């Protein structure tokens, strides 16, 4: 074998090797798609871009809730250098244990190159202070958005957002499959009702990541990304200054205030007391604060304004009077004596007509009126059947006042109170075993009747409107749209003709001028109101008052319910009066009255 042959053999070998390589590479690179798919999978991750959650304004454009930036301090263990632990901790306001604990946690999770949050949600103020002098390697401040409330009011109505739980996720998945684990969702209040409008639409960034999970830029320079769409801003019907005033008045009292604009059904203010500062549930300490609030015996997380069912007490007499007139069994000149053998009453002239019965809130009058409404001889032979038929008729009227069922406002978790069906009494006493004397407590708003404060305010609005209402609501407009949700623009009629209301208006004015609520009197504002004192078997009676004003052009309808405050005229009426004055005049002309309310402590008592 000569040299030439040997060289040829080696060249053939070389060409052979090269051809094998190129063939192999052809299959790897051109023929097979497996590796291309694998490559994009390994290196590209989908990263969600969270949209800016919509913010909420009050009716005059003041901020109710907005987003604020907080900072997570992230630590990359591999690069982190802390030469002076004491100074480091002092600067950040943490203790050494926290640092050690988080470091151990990062190690346990194998986060050596991947950032680990050392401090979550540092406030903007603290960040501003720390940022300039913070010179440690391997740390990074990462901005994040959280909800913030500039006022500390309206907590239960605004609600809060928190991480979605498994049940909520499963429920939402049946319709849209939007949420992911760890997403925030509106849990209560407006945040919950308007979740869809507020949350916006999430965007996606395709991020290239290296083998350690460290980001290396955008996939295809971001051409595949989708932008996040910010949520809609909402304008509320709430009058923030009235709201805050109401909350102030209700300090140290248990109960609620709901104020509506009768002509629209817009909620001007909705106070529940005691409440909490909404900022407590917005930051890093959500769970800690939530637990404290939940354990509080005064239940600050309980929205009494829309959830607490109370006996309405004497304010219900207004409904009775109207139904009686509609049914034709009560006339303006229907006189009854105050027969205290039927039911207790208090000192006032007797006998009295319909107008006076409201003005003086006479109990026996309404006992008799109730009997007249229920026993209209629809069945002449059987008194029991007659009562049942009358009750059914009566109940239909009562329901038309927005009682006995949820109003359908936009506040989440609303309750509807109770106006019992006949089946309830049939079950309780037996069929055809009950008559008016059995259920007479209902005549004066006691007994089985239960009403929620927002329904009481709505009742005041109905009377102010002379027979109709709009479903109470807190949001006027969503985004750029100035049109309200349809259900809030539909007039809801009661079954009582508007002609019957004038008498009630006049009588309610006299309640203030010369009746049971003289403390609510204001010399310049013609307030129409009605007191109530709901009997409370567990303690002091509840103090109730509903009102609207001004009489000839109602701008505000209000219900005040103060638990264990005794007589309706004592606490509830002056609070309502102050609220009315505040809303109409934006100032208070009766500092003595205000002082009396502010200093009243009905909890410690």
């Amino acid at each position, binding site marked *: 074998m000569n040299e030439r042959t040997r060289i040829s053999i080696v060249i053939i070998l070389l060409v052979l090797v090269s051809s094998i390589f190129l063939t192999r590479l052809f299959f790897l*690179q*051109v023929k097979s798609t497996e590796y291309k798919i694998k490559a994009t999978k390994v290196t590209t991750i989908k990263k969600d871009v969270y949209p800016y959650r919509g913010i909420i304004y009050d009716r005059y454009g003041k901020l109710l809730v907005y987003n604020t930036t907080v900072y997570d301090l992230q630590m990359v263990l591999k690069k982190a250098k802390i030469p002076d632990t004491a100074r480091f901790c002092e600067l950040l306001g943490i203790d050494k244990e926290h640092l050690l604990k988080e470091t151990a946690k990062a190690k346990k999770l194998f986060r050596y190159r991947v950032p680990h949050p050392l401090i979550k949600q540092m406030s903007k103020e603290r960040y501003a202070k720390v940022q300039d002098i913070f010179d440690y390697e391997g740390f990074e401040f990462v901005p994040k958005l959280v909800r913030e409330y500039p006022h500390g009011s309206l907590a239960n109505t605004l609600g809060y957002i928190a991480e979605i739980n498994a049940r909520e996720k499963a429920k939402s998945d049946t319709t849209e499959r939007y949420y992911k684990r760890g997403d925030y969702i509106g849990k209560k209040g407006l945040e919950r009702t308007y979740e869809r409008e507020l949350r916006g639409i999430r965007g996606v960034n395709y991020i290239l990541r290296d083998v*350690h999970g460290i980001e290396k830029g955008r996939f295809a320079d971001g051409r595949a990304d989708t932008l996040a769409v910010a949520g809609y801003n909402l304008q509320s019907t709430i009058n923030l200054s009235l709201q805050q005033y109401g909350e102030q008045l209700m300090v140290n009292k248990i109960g609620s205030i709901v104020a509506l604009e009768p002509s629209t059904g817009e909620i001007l203010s909705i106070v529940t007391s005691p409440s909490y500062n909404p900022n407590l549930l917005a930051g890093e300490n959500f769970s800690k604060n939530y637990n404290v609030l939940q354990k509080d015996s005064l239940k600050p997380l309980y929205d009494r304004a829309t959830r607490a069912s109370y006996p309405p007490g004497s304010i219900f007499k207004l409904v009775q009077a109207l139904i009686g007139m509609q049914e034709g069994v009560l006339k303006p000149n229907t006189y009854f004596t105050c027969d205290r053998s039927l039911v207790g009453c208090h000192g006032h002239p007797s006998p009295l007509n319909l107008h006076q019965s409201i003005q003086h809130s006479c109990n026996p009058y309404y006992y008799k009126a109730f009997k007249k409404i229920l026993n209209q001889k629809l069945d002449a032979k059987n008194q029991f059947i007659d009562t049942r038929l009358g009750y059914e008729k009566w109940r239909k009227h009562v329901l038309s006042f927005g009682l006995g069922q949820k109003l359908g406002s936009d506040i989440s978790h609303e309750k509807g109170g109770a106006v019992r069906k006949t089946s309830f009494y049939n079950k309780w006493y037996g069929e055809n075993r009950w008559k008016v004397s059995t259920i007479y407590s209902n005549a004066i708003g006691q007994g089985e009747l239960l009403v929620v404060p927002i329904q009481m305010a709505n009742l005041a609005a109905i009377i102010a409107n002379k027979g109709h209402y709009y479903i109470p609501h807190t949001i006027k407009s969503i985004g750029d749209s100035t049109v309200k949700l349809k259900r809030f623009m539909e007039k809801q009629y009661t079954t009582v003709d508007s002609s019957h209301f004038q008498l009630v208006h006049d009588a309610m004015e006299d309640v203030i001028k010369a009746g049971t609520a003289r403390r609510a009197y204001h010399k310049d504002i013609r307030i129409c109101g009605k007191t109530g004192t709901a009997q409370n078997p567990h303690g002091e009676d509840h103090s109730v008052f509903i009102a609207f004003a001004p009489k000839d052009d109602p701008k505000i309808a209000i219900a005040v319910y103060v638990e264990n405050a005794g007589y309706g005229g004592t606490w509830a009426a002056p609070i309502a009066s102050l609220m009315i004055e505040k809303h109409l005049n934006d100032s208070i002309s009766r500092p003595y009255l205000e002082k009396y309310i502010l200093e009243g402590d009905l909890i410690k008592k």
Partner: protein
Amino acid sequence: MRRENSIWKNIDWLTIILFLTLAIMGWLNIYSAIYTPELDQSMFDFQYQPGKQFTWICFSVITISSILVIDFNFFFKVPYLFYIVILVAIVLVLSPLGVSVGGNRAWIDLKFMRFQPAEFAKLAVALSIAKFIDSTTKFRYGLNKDTMKVLGIIFFVPILILGVQKDTGSALVFACFIVVLFLDGLSFVIPLVGIVLAGIFVSSLLVNPVYLILGIIGFCQLFLFFFIKKVKSELWVWSLATALWVGALAFSQYIELNVLYLIAGEVTVVITMLVFFLLRDKSTLVVSTLCIALVLSSIPLSTDYILNDILQPHQKKRIEVMINPESDPKGVGWNVIQSKTAIGSGGLWGTGYQQGTFTKGDYVPEQHTDFIFCTIGEEHGWVGSITVITLFMILLIRLLLLTNRQRSRFAKIYGYSVFSILFFHFMINIGMVIGLLPVIGIPLPFFSYGGSSLWAFTIMIFIFIKLDMHRTQILARG
């Protein structure tokens, strides 16, 4: 003056252009492999690898000039001294002068630079065997003292490297000198047997041994038929054996054959044929062919034994991984899976310079050193692969052809060495990166990051260019 001119005229510009093209491509690739957009690093920034590699390139240019300028006789004088210096340097790695990079203690720190003696050892061996064979009168390959001395010069170094650094890759490259000796006249039988045995061994891992054995026997039968006339006179014996062979092949497709039964059957046939021919005609070629068939058939059966009892566990692992990378996706297999994915994602045209997502993402370990070919595959696609492989092929063939025109044995042996060393690095490195060969950590010449390697290859090639320039004078000297 005239003489000077003729020397510069003799320089082989094609080799130099090929060298420069590969070196510049390599440097750009390292820059891309290291490149991270956030760092905004310059290609010349000494802090980063591309910058360092650039200084090595500058360094190489100085070296090139020196090589081209100094008297060529110098290269005849230094080999043994150089060889000894390198041996000392390899041992010095263990001394305090030695430094570890990436867990591998293979560098010597000379303060102003670090270098890897093993990279220069190949050069030392090439020069030394060239000098030895050239200076030994009447050198002949065979079972003689001189041949043993040559083999000694060659194999002492890898044994030392293995002993000192436990670096299989660097040691393995010395096997390339077999090709040198073959080109120089060593009987082809030895390398051929080696290649065939290794080929069958590797094939038996990939292919069902049944088919492999049938293949070997079939090949031998064909060989007998076409090359040995005597077989044709006794065609019926051959036909019988072939019929049996076809039967076994057809049978094997339907039934899971027990290898041992098959071997027993085939061995019977072969031995019958053997006995038959031995009795009738003592043709050595026929007999030896049949014997070879028997021996070769036994290799696939011994594969398991070699794999399990002779190889070290980590070597076994590497062979397993080569056959099935998924078997060890987090260990050695990781590199192979990742590098295949990176290359595979390149497609026909690649993702573009500095656009390789895998390259950017640090997914392939040793991306800028041993696995640098991934960057080419990913960023420049199959077209890039063809370009690089073709350039290497042209360079290698050019080196062979240049060697062939050398008149002196020294230059010839040296030229074959340069060729063989480059060829082995090229073959083993790319074969490893695309998952055809086990993971053996040796660099791809001019592309892999590493000053010593680049510098050593440069010197190696330019010494040859220098020798080529003076080929007429060297002859005169002889």
